[in-house]
């Protein structure tokens, strides 16, 4: 899906603000410096998603997700490669020997949910605040599995807003991708919101 340069720039800036605010909250929570790369944004069709984000349907991923309702209805998901997410949590809560594949630290999932919830809620609320779109998120959930299985439940005709960023926490680098699956009408609504936002800024320019 092609964004105009102005729309792409506006979306990037919104993503930048959302990601930066998340980084700040995470740094307070984890009591450590968090570095965040400049997020890359795109809007794609669900069929183009794996290629667009470089995650194959057969890849093992960890996912924190929250259902969205209101002006934007769909699902917000934060995706990490399973191996990377385990390393991240271990760096934060300590490492545990793995006995024949059974992870002893079940409460790792709670920590991932909290981290994911912060990123999702801050990024989504930044976007909805700046674009004036009222949206509610449901409780955060966690699951691991094949990427293909995770997005299977999405409609074939959905569009996806993608925000990809790398964060470094606790001296561990991990790259995560925020994908927001929405109906095409909602995507169009989002784009209109971007246009209105830009027009509003331009209109408010004071004559010199």
């Amino acid at each position, binding site marked *: 899906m092609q964004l105009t340069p102005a729309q792409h720039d506006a979306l990037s*800036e919104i993503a*930048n603000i959302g990601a*930066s605010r998340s*980084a700040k909250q995470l740094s307070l929570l984890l009591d450590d410096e*968090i570095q965040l790369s400049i997020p890359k944004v795109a809007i794609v069709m669900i069929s183009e998603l794996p290629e667009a984000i470089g995650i194959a349907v057969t890849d093992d991923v960890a996912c924190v997700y929250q259902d969205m309702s209101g002006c934007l209805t769909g699902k917000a998901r934060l995706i990490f490669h399973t191996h990377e997410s385990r390393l991240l949590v271990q760096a934060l809560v300590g490492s545990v020997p793995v006995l024949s594949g059974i992870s002893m630290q079940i409460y790792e999932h709670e920590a991932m949910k909290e981290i994911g919830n912060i990123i999702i809620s801050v990024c989504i609320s930044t976007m909805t605040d700046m674009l004036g779109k009222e949206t509610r998120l449901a409780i955060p959930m966690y699951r691991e599995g094949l990427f293909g299985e995770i997005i299977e439940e999405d409609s074939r005709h959905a569009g996806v807003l993608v925000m990809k960023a790398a964060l470094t926490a606790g001296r561990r680098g991990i790259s995560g991708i925020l994908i927001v699956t929405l109906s095409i009408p909602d995507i169009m609504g989002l784009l209109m919101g971007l246009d209105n936002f830009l027009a509003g800024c331009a209109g*408010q*320019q004071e004559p010199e």
Partner: protein
Amino acid sequence: MQQKTILIVDDSATSRLLFRARLPGNSPYVLHEADSLDSAMEKAASIRPEVVVLDYNMPGQSGVEIARAMLKAGIKARFVLFTANTQKSVLDEAAAAGFVAVIEKPVTSEIINDMLEKVGQCN
């Protein structure tokens, strides 16, 4: 009377647009824009701004690095960091590099007013 100028350096056109939109109408400052290290250095040398507002998170050099380059080039201005990432490490970095203020994104008229007041007090 010499016109006072603000130079905003941010790679995002949207961010610069928003800043311009929130700059109060009765402000004595004129706003100029730059989107990278090179254009920033060029503009700063020619227009000699009172205030340089720099985005932190930019591809290439960060806002702090650009400020350092400007100081080195002898550009005398008050530097203000512009970011949504107000972690302690970032604030410390800004203070160490000589920034007089850090303002948060997304910017509002109030934030800009407070910042200009603070900058005014520095002179």
